[in-house]
């Protein structure tokens, strides 16, 4: 539901004239809500930029969002090639 809420805010902000991009851990919800730019990360909820105290990982995600902003010329949804190696701690 976090994804729907942030997606609805994103839609209005984009329509107001400010370019936006989102990271998503729920591609179905982000896709269904319809946003201009989104990147799917196979990360757990609560970790959209990665793990605590992993600045280099946060920067990889942040940079991907920035390049999506620079490259997209129409509504675009991409997937980031990350896998979460510590899933079991979330299950």
């Amino acid at each position, binding site marked *: 539901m*976090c994804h729907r809420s942030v997606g609805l805010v994103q*839609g209005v902000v984009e329509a107001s004239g400010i370019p936006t991009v989102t990271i998503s851990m729920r591609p179905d*919800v982000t896709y269904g809500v319809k946003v201009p730019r989104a990147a799917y990360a196979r990360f757990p909820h609560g970790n959209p*930029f990665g793990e605590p105290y992993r600045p280099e990982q946060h*920067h990889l995600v942040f940079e991907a969002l920035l390049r999506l902003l620079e490259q997209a010329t129409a509504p675009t949804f991409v997937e980031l090639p990350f896998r979460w190696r510590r899933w079991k701690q979330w299950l």
Partner: protein
Amino acid sequence: MKPIPLEPLDTTELQQKYDDWIVFVERSHHGSNPRINPGDAFTPLSKPLSQSRVALVTTAGAHLVDQTPFHVETVAGDPTHRILPDDLDPSDLRFTHTHYDTAPANQDPNCVFPIDRLHELVERGRLGAASPVHVGMMGFNPDPSPIQDDLAPRVAGILADAEVDVAIMVPG
């Protein structure tokens, strides 16, 4: 740092999964309705990112320790926002949200609210400036109407007043 590839997402089954999720949400939460965006909004960058002012906008329940926490005990949700000044002390950030594990965010806010990363990108010249204000919200809102009708326009106004060029949107 080698940039990671941006591969198009296979969206084949996503609409069906979304439709199934909406059915689930409407069954399990009173007051829900299937609000979505018109889907046609697309605003190109007006200037290079190295000259752009960037804001963080999150529904991960981010607020400062001295701000009222979000209501998370009601089924109605909490369609309010908190202003997060850019010069905040990250150790003052709190994440109040009961629908995801907030432990990592409360350990290192940059997991969901990458304020230190934003400042580093400005220092490196990748981004022009950080917005003087960022926005925290709490995303558990079964009824999306007040989000779309009231909260979102308020947030857009805050960003416009701050002369923000780009907004990074982050769910929890």
